[in-house]
């Protein structure tokens, strides 16, 4: 299957815990947010803790809020972050 490249951004508490603000990943074309999350959980450690189901997080694809079932387009900007607390 052809692969695509995406950027993944981390914000706020997630960026602090994971000590990562941005990375570039290769995913199979047609991959969903759930597939990306499974890949991150497989890293173990804090990644498994944060994305394995014990903690709540939010995701955006190309700067729109997105659910786990959504397919990630090629060259997408995906962001993972804690529930927002502005206002």
């Amino acid at each position, binding site marked *: 299957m052809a692969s695509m490249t995406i950027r993944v951004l981390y914000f706020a508490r997630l960026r602090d815990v994971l000590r990562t603000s941005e990375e570039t990943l290769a995913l199979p074309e047609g991959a969903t947010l759930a597939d990306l999350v499974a890949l991150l959980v497989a890293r173990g450690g804090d990644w498994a803790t944060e994305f394995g189901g014990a903690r709540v997080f939010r995701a955006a694809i190309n700067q729109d*809020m997105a659910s786990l079932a959504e397919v990630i387009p090629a060259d997408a900007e995906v962001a993972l972050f*804690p529930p927002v607390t*502005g206002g």
Partner: protein
Amino acid sequence: MDVTIRVQEADFSLADEYALLAGRAEVGAVVAFVGLVRDVPGRLAGMTLEHYPGMTEKQLGMIVAQAGERWPLSAVTVVHRVGELKLSEQIVLLLVASAHRDAAFAASQFIMDFLKNEAPFWKKETTGEGAAWVEAKDSDAAALLRWSRE
């Protein structure tokens, strides 16, 4: 509908932003909301506000556009600060101008409810013991239910 959306480190002036909205002949009601850094008694030293540049402006624009579809609005201004904020400093300003009072009030609450849940800002509070990210409140998500259409 005239829409102004800004994310900035600098403070804002309610008076200046109000003056830009209120002079239109068709405006009968202006509702303003200002959120401020509130002291949790004796505990808080200040806070830092982080955001997701680009997405913030996009989400705020979509929220305001949705409000404009539901109510007859003349103008909406949203100014949200980021960076370091001290006690009692202003965080967010919302101004909604409409011909009608009920529309201005409803749209103001709609925009604030969605901003609280969908605009990517995060607060980190500074206290005597250090800094900690603020946890989102379930009540903020519950507030969205009142806007669901049947």
